[in-house]
């Protein structure tokens, strides 16, 4: 096989690999992109119960209530301008706490957000960046304390 042919073959293979990858990526994006909203952004929108989404903000102080079964937790996520009520059934992450940043992933069902997953910050410095931005947008970002 001539050098030119060989090169062509490998370029072709490479293009095929990239093409398949691009197709896979687009397909995967189609199903698996989860959009993020702050409580304020949620006010203006309607969500179908099938749409998986993420909301984030701070866990409102004094809003965490545990049901008698010990597993169901209700709390509010706030960006200090607006509030979304959340229910979650399961064990909360270690770093979940009132007044702390949180991201919930799940579905909007009749005015309540049913979370399938709760992500709390990973360490004392970490504010989920969506949360930080949401707080900034509502004008409540207090700065750099959380950053250092």
């Amino acid at each position, binding site marked *: *096989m001539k*050098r030119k042919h*060989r090169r062509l*073959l*490998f370029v072709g*293979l*490479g293009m095929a*690999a*990239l093409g*398949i*990858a691009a197709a*896979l*990526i687009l*397909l*995967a*994006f189609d*199903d*698996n*992109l*989860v*959009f*993020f*909203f702050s409580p304020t952004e949620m006010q203006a929108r309607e969500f179908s119960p099938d749409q998986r989404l*993420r909301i984030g903000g701070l866990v409102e102080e004094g809003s965490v209530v*545990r049901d*008698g*079964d*010990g*597993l169901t937790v209700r709390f509010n996520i706030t960006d200090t301008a607006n509030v979304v009520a959340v229910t979650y059934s*399961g*064990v*909360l*992450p*270690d*770093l979940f706490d009132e007044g702390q940043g949180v991201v919930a*992933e799940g579905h909007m069902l009749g005015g309540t957000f049913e979370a399938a997953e709760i992500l709390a910050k*990973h*360490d*004392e*410095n*970490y*504010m*989920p*960046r*969506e949360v*930080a*931005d949401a707080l900034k947008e509502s004008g409540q970002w207090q700065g*750099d304390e*959380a*950053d*250092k």
Partner: protein
Amino acid sequence: MIAEIGHFALILALALAVVQGTLPLIGAWRRNDSWMAVSRPTVAGQFVFVSLSLGCLMYAYVASDFSLANVAANSHSDKPLPYKFSGLWGNHEGSMLLWVWILALYGVAIAGLGGNLPPPLRARVLAIQGLVGVGFIVFLLATSNPFLRLDPAPLNGNGLNPLLQDPGLAFHPPLLYFGYVGLSVAFSFAVAALIEGKVDPAWARWVRPWSLLSWSALTAGIVLGSWWAYYELGWGGFWFWDPVENASFMPWLMATALLHSAIVAEKRDALKNWTVLLAILGFSLSLMGTFLVRSGMLTSVHSFAADPERGVFILGFLVVVIGGSLTLYAWRAPSLRSGGRFRPVSREGALVVNNLLLVTGCATVFIGTLYPLILDAISGDKVSVGPPFFESSFVWIMAPLFILTAAGPLLAWKRADLAGVMQRLALAFVAAAAAAILLVALRGGPWGAILGLTIAAWLIGGVAAEFIERLRLFRVPLGDSLRRALVLPRSAWGMSLAHAGVAILIAGTVGATNWQTERVQVMQVGESAEVAGYDFTLVSLGESQGPNYNILRGEFRVQQDGELIDTLHADKRKYWVQGMDTSEAAIRTSWIADIYVAIGDPAPAGGIAVRIYYNPLVPWIWIGALVMVLGGLVSFSDRRHRVGAPSRARRKIQAARPAENEA
């Protein structure tokens, strides 16, 4: 005073790095031997001063000198001693200093072991290392200085993030950094080769062992992090496709590709351009990974904006290193002539496909990881890309790779006989078919899991077939086979081990993702729950104290068919300084499956939330990764990698090796 010495030593190291990065480069260009010779003493000096600097910071941590801002922010006098050490690299500034130290260490290794490198090549390689060092030390001094003082000094520190107070995570960053920085060696060799316009097999013989070493360290580091997440986060998972994880996974994929293409460059004098490109991309991704994670750009764009100086520096540095080296590549690569020719069906061809798949896989991870950042920058929409994305894209690109991995080592160089290879893969076909039939009969599904485990069995079968072939097992007397095993080059052993490790790892991952059984419920003391045929009884809940935390401990009795299997203790720690909780899951492993118990919060009506998991095949993930690392190290120890090893010994090994089966 000690801190000032450390600071000053770092400045001296910078001065030496500047010399190391310039004079030898000019010397190599002007063929001036004495200028080229400058590189070795400067490398040694840089190492001494960076070590001194690191030593000073370490002293400040161990002595709890809270007048240093960095120590005050990340340590506490109550912290156990080992974690005072690891606190050093548990934060941005300290970890950057560790990075620079490892870079200097690699520099010394090249200077010390590279006695037989052509002097201009050695001078250039060390100069590039020096320039990378300059970038990092300037970054440290200008934006991330760990030696800044606090006035007045606080009485005590903020403490280390409790999640990091853990043996697994204490060693995770240094190992990862050994891997990241190890790729700088391949990078420096690549850039030096581009400047010289010459890539020969001797060059590749140098790049290969360094890539192997850094690949092994990277593998170990990533798995250590994954293992930590498994037992510490209490979620029973081991890989979350989190951006921070992906940041270390991308250089690993590139290093894996580099490892394989360097073989072709060494043995066949082909794919040289490509190998150089991979070396550049591998190090670029590891730079990006370091910065993205440590600057908080991925987890939080905010800290990026809060310290514009740091962000701008990082961007600038990435642009200079990646842009500069790629420009150099575009300019010089066409002049690198490729040597050996080969047919599409050949060992070389198989390695090309390996590289294509690995790089494509890396590209999907790259897009999935950075897409949210890019979309946010363009449209302001915030999205997250979760595990389902990677499972439906990356995994499908890797599946054919694993299938081909069984065949690749059986293919001959230059041109291979496909029918013959298929014949020799009989064992793999048998293993795969047996696994598939067995799994369908026993488990019945899901089909993705069966496919995954079938591929794992196929790969193990292929590795075994190749090994048997190599030893001529069952075809020559057993004694001859054993003799063959003894003289088999270590790189061949290493390859078989690493590929077998991959198969075990695939099996573990597939089993864990598909067959995990989970149960979450509130348990009162005395209550029992049944998961996967095991009965778990909460025997007691007790409180006690650790060195700097309170412990809430649940004791569980595990029974199967009324027989006591084990007693497990799942802890929840509350750290005094931060007021943070961490979980310490109780895990009992049978080496085929794990029983996993973690406790959550106490319920208002008494009792405690409990998560119980039955995780089939999870231990295989750790075993597989360990075998892979072992394979990498065994291969690294191959004497053929040491350029200038006694030629007599080299001839002997070559004579003993069947020609068409070279590793």
